[in-house]
């Protein structure tokens, strides 16, 4: 197995330290360039288990807008982002929706639910269906 040598820009605070993480394997990593302890934690987490909150939209029917914004209610592994997008893009929800409502429970077994990030009532789109637009 090849060694690890990566530069990570820390986003814990606006200082933006460039942190170098290197070592022969994951058990023996050296962290350099961080100005505080939080930077070291962040950099090691980025190497061992990088996670992100996934935020996107789903289709919504019988609502004044065509898309409902959603998010995962916890961070998911970075490599699950695109597979999760495929699942989310197949979903269609029906208005009304309340903020926090679960749209997809435990998406792709990540342990995170996809939830609505706003409330949206039932109603016609302004201008009506004659206006056309995407399905």
């Amino acid at each position: 197995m090849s060694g690890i040598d990566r530069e990570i820009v820390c986003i814990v605070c606006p200082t933006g330290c460039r942190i170098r993480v290197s070592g022969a394997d994951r058990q023996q990593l050296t962290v350099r360039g961080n100005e505080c302890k939080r930077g070291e934690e962040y950099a090691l987490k980025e190497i061992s288990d990088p996670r992100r909150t996934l935020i996107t939209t789903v289709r919504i029917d019988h609502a004044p807008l065509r898309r409902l914004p959603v998010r995962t209610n916890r961070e998911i592994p970075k490599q699950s982002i695109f597979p999760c997008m495929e699942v989310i893009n197949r979903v269609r929800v029906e208005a009304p929706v309340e903020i926090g409502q679960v749209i997809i429970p435990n998406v792709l077994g990540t342990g995170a639910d996809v939830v609505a990030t706003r409330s949206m009532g039932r109603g016609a789109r302004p201008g009506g269906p004659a206006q056309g637009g995407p399905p």
Partner: protein
Amino acid sequence: MNRFDIVVIGGGPAGMAAAVAAREAGAEDILLIERDRELGGILQQCIHNGFGLHRFKEDLTGPEFAERYIRRVEELDIPRKLDTTVLEITEDREVLYINAEEGVRTVSAGAIILAMGCRERSRGAINIPGSRPAGVFTAGTAQRLINIEGYMVGRRIMMLGTGDIGLIMARRLTLEGAKVIAVLARKPYPGGLTRNVVQCLYDYDIPLLLRHTIVEILGKDRVRGVLVAETDENSRPISGSEELYECDTVILSVGLIPENELSLSAGVKLDSHTGGPIVDESRQTSVAGIYACGNVVHVHDLVDYVVEESEIAGKGAAGFVLGSVAVGTEKMRPEDRKGAPVHLLPGEGLKYVVPQRVRGIDGEDSLDLYLRVNRVYGKSSLEVKLGGEIIKRVKRLRMSPGEMERLRLNKGVMEKINGSDLIVEAAEVNG
């Protein structure tokens, strides 16, 4: 003519926070005017997270942040007009608006709070040569089309500019299946927040080309490519360095301009450094009784500071209205009760400082200055000078034009303020 104590123009985060703060400070009779079909402003299309870290100690999305304030406005039952556009305001605080139900109407206001936000600079504002094909969008327009209307704007994208919305849209477009060929920054540093550069570009391996710009847009009906050139130390394109990139879409994230047409109609004086009204510490503009807050005053990078500033304006407007009621028919303006305002000026290294004026400080414990530096600083300090003497100095590890700085002057410092102007400067610190 109907009369309201306070008319708030704009139902985004600034307008909502100002209206809520004004009500909480005792102003009963408030009208909130919003041109969209719902409250929330641009937050409704900013579906990404990163909002509310300071205000709520939570990592909220734009719509989640907006909904908290919408609920507060509803709880307080603050009257609002949606789908209503303000056409003009006057120096004596009349507000001319239009909507489909009432037509054109005028109301008079004890105080007005300007909270119209900002708008994007477009292709015309930066004069990119070339043909005029379809497929050139500002980042905010692309954001609205994708996140609210459900339209995809293109497949192969070239992005010019590194404002936060642009960075966020580079990620969003990638998630939705587009290929972002590169993000170009004319300057040697990106304009947006570091965390957005990292989480939006690095995460998705989107190339960031510093010191590059678009010198020509190609294509007849639809964009088919762009000519990209390197830029010199003055950010000017270097002749002979042009390279052709094929793409079907150009997205511009080249800055925001405070939206002040209404302010000008009332004779409100603007600051050439911010593009927004000159305000005092209560966010009162140069016209008595007209207050301003949020991105109409200066472009903020965090909504948390927008609502903070808007609460100051809401409280200020409430004080103006309630104070003038107490004095009777002869309106007594807060500045009449205090000394002449002291000017706050951006000195060496600063792009701007807000507020630009400080009047009396009676009862105020501290004053927060919002400011931006004009270049990237390493270890450095911010200094407030009064007649050559430094009355406040704070250290910073790093400062960048992309990140607004906040500097608090406490009561001890405030008490030193006399009639002289205050100058705020940035300086590199060695060692």
